């Protein structure tokens, strides 16, 4: 009888990991083991470290806005602004309040972006950090308004703005008003730009749709984390339109670098240092040599 025989292996729950599901379920599952969506290898949770990087392939696991802020800003320097802003229901979408509530519980945030003032290696900046745990970082009124106010604040205080993007695109439940956010944020960036101020975009996985087609692609300097999905149209939509399979590596950060749309790919554990250096080189009063 082997009824009481101990197994000499542990069972790992099989996580089905198709491209589509990557987009819909960004959070790291609980438990001791994780599966890297890039190399498909199973990783012991502690091995990914505080930066959440796969030890096998260097793929970056998605992280939340507060986690990101802790990694990037100087200790105790972050001061949140507009932290209480919440979504309303401009289109009267059925049960939108329920959807919002669930997303708030899941992410611990009021909506898909956290904004505030901070220092990075001692340099002052305004930052806006999106969070894919909140309805896939979709941009509705709150995301648009908070990012716009962050940009306006940076313009008023003559500070750089750094935006960490992660978004599936416009918040469809808010209809045309979500589309208008793209114009609103871009117009605010135009004023910041005219004031001669620095805008750094950091594209993190995934940055697609309306965010890539507005502030995502407007940075003076555009950085991206390795292997990040970056593109305008969703891959399913493109496959459906052209009726063929997409090439390997399509719409990755490396693809965007190759095609000239990203300045530099930077690993998460080197991001703070890189941003700090860039800020340092832009804080010379009046520029010049």
């Amino acid at each position, binding site marked *: 009888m082997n009824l009481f025989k101990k197994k000499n292996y542990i069972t790992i729950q099989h996580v089905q990991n198709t491209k589509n599901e990557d987009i819909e379920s960004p959070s790291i599952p609980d438990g001791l083991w994780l599966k890297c969506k890039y190399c498909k290898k199973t990783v012991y949770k502690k091995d990914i470290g505080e930066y959440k990087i796969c030890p096998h392939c260097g793929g970056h696991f998605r992280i939340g806005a507060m986690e990101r802020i802790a990694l990037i800003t100087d200790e105790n320097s972050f001061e949140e602004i*507009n932290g*209480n*802003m*919440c*979504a*309303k*229901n*401009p*289109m*009267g*979408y059925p049960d939108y309040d329920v959807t919002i509530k669930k997303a708030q519980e899941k992410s611990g945030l009021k909506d898909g972006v956290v904004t505030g003032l901070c220092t990075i290696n001692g340099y002052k900046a305004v930052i806006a950090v999106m969070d894919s745990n909140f309805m896939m970082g979709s941009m509705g*009124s*709150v995301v*648009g*308004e908070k990012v*716009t106010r962050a940009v306006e604040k940076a313009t008023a205080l003559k500070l750089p703005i750094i935006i960490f993007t992660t978004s599936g695109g*416009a918040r*469809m*439940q*808010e*209809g*045309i*008003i*979500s*589309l*208008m*956010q*793209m*114009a*609103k944020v*871009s*117009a*605010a*960036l*135009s*004023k910041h*730009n*005219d004031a001669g101020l620095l805008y750094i975009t950091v594209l993190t996985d995934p940055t697609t*749709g*309306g965010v*890539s*087609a*507005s*502030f*995502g*692609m*407007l940075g003076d300097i555009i950085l991206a984390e390795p292997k990040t999905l970056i*593109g*305008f*149209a*969703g891959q399913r*939509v*493109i496959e459906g*339109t*052209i009726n063929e399979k997409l*090439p390997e590596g*399509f*719409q990755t950060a490396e693809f965007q670098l190759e*095609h000239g*749309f990203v300045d530099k790919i930077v690993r998460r554990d080197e991001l703070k240092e890189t941003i700090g250096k860039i800020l340092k080189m832009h804080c010379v009063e009046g520029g010049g040599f």
Partner: protein
Amino acid sequence: MNRAMKSVTMSRMISRPTTLEFIDEIFDDFIEFHGDRLFKDDKSIVGGIATLDGKPVTVVGVQKGHTIEDNLARNFGSPHPEGYRKALRLMKQAEKFNRPVITFVNTSGAYCGIGAEERGQGEAIARNLIEMADLKVPIICIFIGEGGSGGALALAVADEVWMLENGMYAVLSPEGFASILWRNPSRVEEAAELMKITAQDLIQNKVIDKIIPEPEDGLHNNLKYSTDIIKTELINKLEVLSNKNIEDLLSERYNRFRQFGEYSE
């Protein structure tokens, strides 16, 4: 068929007059210019210079066709990045020579394909948004048919946005909305109604500023009915906008888009 679905159907009719027909009726001496100076000439965007009431203007619009052959050449009115870059080039040219810009929107959306992504569809749209927000000449945008998402917005950051009575403007197609949010493409009519995409809905939430009436016998039978109205309105409005000082014009344009959003604090 509900009212919203009627707009969807009418705005997509293959017989619906296209941008070039509107240009022909409204303006004189139109000269079409081609190319983005970077990659190629995207035939789904047309543009150039013309006169309106004797004064020079720049016109740019999305071009669809009336036949399959024509539509293939025009890519069914779905521009690639080079189309948006051509539009921007012509708008910057208008700024240099201080002439107003009139844009015509009629697209189901920016094209979704490999080449479009390789050449930066997102960047091309984003660039138009930021540049149009600060373009130092009056811009009036007219939705003559479909207005699909970012691909429409890329020509619609304007001082005034007008729409033909049976036009539409939405964050995505009602078919896409129904299949993504409800996983049920057959609920398209319900989606169209909920999405508030008709001219009547859009003027209420200030996305558009004016509705251009269409003739009872159909726009394709009597285009002049609507273009006569557009011509008169354009002449009047451009005179008002051109007389503003540029700071006022730009700050009003900024506030026009700044106001959008519903939230609590």
